């Protein structure tokens, strides 16, 4: 579960606050008061080193660029250029906290992203279902505070989907070739072997970077093709669904029918999904009901009455409808269930950021900042105390 960092930079800029939302898939950053982040780039850093061992620990890394020839590349454009020896890694979360200390900011504030997602949808109480890249989490929020004992996490999320898609391609004997390798390609028949020419003079790229680029291809496939069926997966029904045509960068193209529905079914019903150990995983519906079940019974109607759906993985077609159906089956009939899911991509992926933007621009928020002085006096404990 990622945390959103809100910085107050008051020195030279006209704007009062910056909002950072660092997720495991992408980083969202921008100015408070705006309705969408100015910067949205993947949470990976390309590091080129002169040394041969690839990894650099980030904790000790205060000032960029001082460690003997290390260059960092962030943002999509820079990352996707093939370079020699460029390793790809994800910055550790604690590292970010320490980095703030070197930037001489006057005040900062940390807030749980679940609370901010709820705020962005106009609620201070609700159950936030965040399905992102690495985790699907259900977090109950009551009156602006997270109920930590009710948090339920499941690893079935975007990355799991990607893995399943990879396996599908392996079964179909299709090789994933990222675009940087392709010099030219010919059109082929549906389902036929791809015919393409490799680029000459490709630099020696590292394994991690190559994997990263392949993942990008698979994620594109995942976003365009997969769909969640309305009811639990049924072979006959799936066979009748319309197929979607998709073409890989190397020219291989195919119509995908039943697989489109089968793969995301693992999110809701993990008992049949491949690659899972036993039946210990919870489907999305179960995650939600378990989380609410761990809360005090008095607030349960409040939680069910505002189930906020956020996260990039929820943008799969049919996700919210299926979730609605599952929840209405599992809750007692007298319970009023309301699912809040924004339909635009921007709002669902960035809802935590938007919540931070709203929060930082409130007049009544100004007293909640943790100023430099307070941090120096109190240390990390004051962060725990002041931030919900």
């Amino acid at each position, binding site marked *: 579960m990622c945390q959103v960092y809100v910085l107050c930079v008051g020195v030279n800029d006209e704007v009062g606050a910056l909002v950072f939302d660092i997720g495991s898939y992408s980083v969202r950053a921008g100015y408070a008061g705006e309705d969408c982040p100015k910067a949205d780039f993947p949470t990976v850093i390309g590091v080129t080193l002169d040394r041969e061992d690839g990894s650099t620990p980030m904790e000790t890394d205060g000032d960029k660029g001082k460690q003997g020839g290390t260059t960092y590349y962030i943002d999509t454009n820079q990352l996707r250029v093939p370079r020699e020896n460029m390793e790809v890694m994800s910055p550790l979360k604690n590292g970010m906290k320490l980095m703030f200390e070197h930037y001489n900011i006057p005040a900062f504030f940390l807030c749980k992203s679940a609370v901010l997602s709820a705020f962005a949808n106009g609620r201070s109480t609700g159950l936030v279902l965040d399905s992102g890249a690495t985790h699907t989490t259900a977090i109950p929020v009551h009156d602006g505070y997270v109920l930590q004992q009710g948090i339920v996490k499941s690893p079935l999320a975007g990355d799991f989907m990607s893995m399943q898609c990879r396996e599908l391609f392996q079964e179909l004997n299709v090789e994933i070739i990222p675009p940087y390798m392709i010099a030219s390609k010919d059109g082929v028949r549906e389902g036929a072997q791809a015919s393409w020419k490799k680029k000459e003079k490709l630099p020696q790229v590292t394994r991690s970077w190559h994997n990263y680029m392949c993942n990008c291809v698979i994620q594109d496939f995942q976003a365009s093709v997969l769909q969640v069926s309305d009811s639990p997966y049924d072979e006959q029904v799936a066979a009748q669904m319309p197929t979607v045509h998709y073409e890989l960068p190397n020219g291989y193209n195919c119509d995908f029918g039943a697989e489109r529905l089968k793969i995301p079914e693992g999110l809701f019903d993990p008992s049949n999904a491949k690659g899972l150990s036993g039946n210990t995983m919870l489907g999305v519906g179960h995650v939600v009901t378990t989380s609410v079940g761990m809360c005090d019974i008095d607030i349960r109607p409040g939680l069910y009455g505002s189930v906020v759906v956020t996260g990039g993985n929820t943008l799969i077609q049919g996700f919210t409808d299926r979730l609605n159906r599952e929840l209405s089956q599992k809750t007692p*009939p007298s319970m009023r269930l309301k699912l809040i899911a924004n339909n635009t991509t921007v709002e669902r992926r960035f809802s935590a950021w938007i919540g931070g933007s709203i929060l930082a621009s409130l007049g009544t928020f*100004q007293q909640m900042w943790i100023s430099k002085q307070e941090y120096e006096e109190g240390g990390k404990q004051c962060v725990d105390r002041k931030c919900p």
Partner: protein
Amino acid sequence: MATGADVRDILELTGGDNDGPISKKDLINSDKKKTKKATETLTFKRPEGMHREVYALLYSDKKDAPPLLPSDTTQGYRTVKAKLGCKKVRPWKWMPFTNPARRDGAIFHHWRRTAEEGKDYPFARFNKTVQVPVYSEQEYQMHLHDDGWTKAETDHLFDLCKRFDLRFIVVHDRYDHQQYRKRSVEDLKERYYSICGKLTKVRAASGTEPKIYIFDAGHERRRKEQLEKLFNRTPEQVAEEEYLIQELRKIETRKKEREKKAQDLQKLIKAADTTTELRRAEKRVSKKKLPQKRETEKPAVPETAGIKFPDFKSAGVTPRSHRMKLPSSVGQKKIKAIEQILIEQGVDLNPMPTEEIVQMFNELRSDLVLLYELKQAHSNCEYEQQMLRHRYEALLKAGSGGGCGTAGAGLAATPQGGELNVEAKEQIIDVVGAPLTPNSRKRRESASSSSSVKKVKKP
């Protein structure tokens, strides 16, 4: 875009009221000069912004002039437009400010109008906190000591309450379970409110009766348990409950029907009794021709018995035979019955309507109807009695010994409505539809009745 005020400013001309800061009145209010003109002319023109229809309601063409004291219609009906650019620009300044709600006196910067420099931060007044009582060591030792709670734990509880503004759900969530025991929300609330209560009592000035909030932890716990059970009901249980409620409703309606029928019968009988009594009294009086000791207390003849002939109060002339007409409320069967008896007895169906005849004929028909109803009720009761007798005999044969004795008692006993006895040994009535026990199943199979409604006459 340069407005007049800006141009004047640039050329440093003076004109108009430039002095003083711009106020909302200047932007939104109407010009004061124009109102004078409006009062002078008695115009029939409708004011701007007022809809045509509204104006037409007030002043139509043919009516008089508008009232002598016209109100200022420019105020109300106009959609106000902000007049921008009429004054000098108010400068903004990037200035530091302190927020009185903060404890550390940190200085932040923001844009504010120079006119508001020095004023308090307007949002500081929203910083409301809940008053959580603070106790001293002595107070704790003297009054607030409790076996289940250590001082450290109590302190921890109060600290959390202050941090989270008495949101007990959050307090319970953040409570330190490793260090202290696992407490439920009710435990925390109980401890908190008991301490508050004791402190108010202790600290209250002598002589005053302080108001203490009493928290009933036991009640809360039971309530939550109930809620949990309600929440965790399976669909089967819900269905069963629905089913039981329906059965209950059926029983109640049947009971009502029974009672109504019994009442109707009673009325009928009473009517019959009273009419016969009336007749006898009249005959006696007329035979003896004695000064009548009119027992003016004629028992009121219930109106459901017999036919009530309406008293004609029509305007104009009506023939007397109208009074002989049967009212429309009498059903076909009764009319037929009346006709039949009249024919049998050789009475004319439509006699000559003299005063006496009319009255007697009406009475006759009323009595005939009463008789018919009584006959029907009688045959109904006979029929029911027969049925019950058959049933009783059938049960005697089929049922076990245990069922019989009580079955017999049941016949005479008044049924108790609303009781759904699944064992249903006492109630032969109303066992329809309930989950069947072996006994009652046999009874149902042997009973031949088609209707499930049984009536029992109250003794």
